[in-house]
């Protein structure tokens, strides 16, 4: 049975979408309230293979470059018919519109650094209360090496998320699209001065800032 593959949500836009979906299918904007769902009709939902994930990423970047406000969907998000698509979006329209406003004309930048020497892992076995647990989590997630880097780009940052997995700490910044090169130069300069080794990548669609979807 053909499925509606949902790729992203966007603020209402005019014009035809020239970008193609993961399976090479043409994409359409379907109006649901004051939001556009960018969808493609496919025979089967694409599998999350290496090749398809890369295609999805390229397609999302191309869509994002042509759209002022875009929230990427999860890979594989599907609806069987228009009623299901409508139900997916309609109940959350207000929060989705707020999220679209938050990412409008903004780009995600990703900064990664190795954080294994940063914070010794506290002994959790002695954690007794919920408050203590939350404090110990906060200490674990802290990455002091990021502080001077964050300060160097604060003027452009409109949203921030930070996380640490294994030894790699990642910081996601939401910045104006027009400030990408200045942001990159500033954070690289701060890293060089502080002797911090990092990787900056972007600009990307706001994957890390699309929690409501």
């Amino acid at each position, binding site marked *: 049975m053909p499925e509606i593959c949902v790729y992203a949500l966007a603020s209402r836009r005019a014009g035809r979408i020239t970008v193609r979906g993961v399976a090479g299918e043409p994409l359409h904007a379907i109006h649901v309230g004051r939001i556009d769902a960018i969808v493609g009709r496919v025979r089967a*939902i694409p599998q*999350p293979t*290496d090749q398809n*994930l*890369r295609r*999805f*990423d390229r397609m*999302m*970047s191309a869509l994002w470059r042509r759209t002022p406000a875009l929230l*990427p*969907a*999860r*890979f*594989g*998000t*599907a609806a*069987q018919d228009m009623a299901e698509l409508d139900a997916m979006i309609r109940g959350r329209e207000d929060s989705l519109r707020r999220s679209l406003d938050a990412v409008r004309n903004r780009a995600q930048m*990703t900064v*990664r650094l*190795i954080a*294994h*020497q940063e914070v010794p892992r506290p002994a*959790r*076995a002695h*954690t*007794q*209360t*919920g408050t203590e*647990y*939350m404090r110990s*989590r906060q200490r674990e997630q802290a990455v002091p090496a990021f502080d001077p880097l964050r300060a160097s780009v604060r003027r452009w940052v409109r949203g921030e998320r930070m*996380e640490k*997995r*294994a*030894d*790699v700490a*990642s910081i996601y910044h939401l910045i104006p699209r027009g400030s990408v090169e200045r942001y*990159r130069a500033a954070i*690289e300069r701060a*890293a*060089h001065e502080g*002797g*911090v*080794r*990092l*990787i*900056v*990548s*972007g*600009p*990307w669609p706001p*994957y*890390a800032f*699309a929690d409501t979807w």
Partner: protein
Amino acid sequence: MPRRTRTRNRELETETVAARILDSKDTSLLDVVDHALNKGVVLTGEVTLALAQVDLVYVRLALLLAAADRVLPNEDSNYLERRRARRALRRARRA
């Protein structure tokens, strides 16, 4: 087109798994996987139970694969730590 740049510390740390990942030539794959985990990946499947060529039950399943800390943001990614923390919380509630 997104660009990637590296800034090297003169006092490079000893090689770790993390360092090898960051040093990989294919950092674009790292970004692709990171984006997928940030949002999660949905796997869907359908099952139809039939008897004597009569469809009786139709089941549509959606499985979400995502980094644990994205779905449970206050949880530790280490299972043992997670279990210890939950036990501590239970003890604290009982006390």
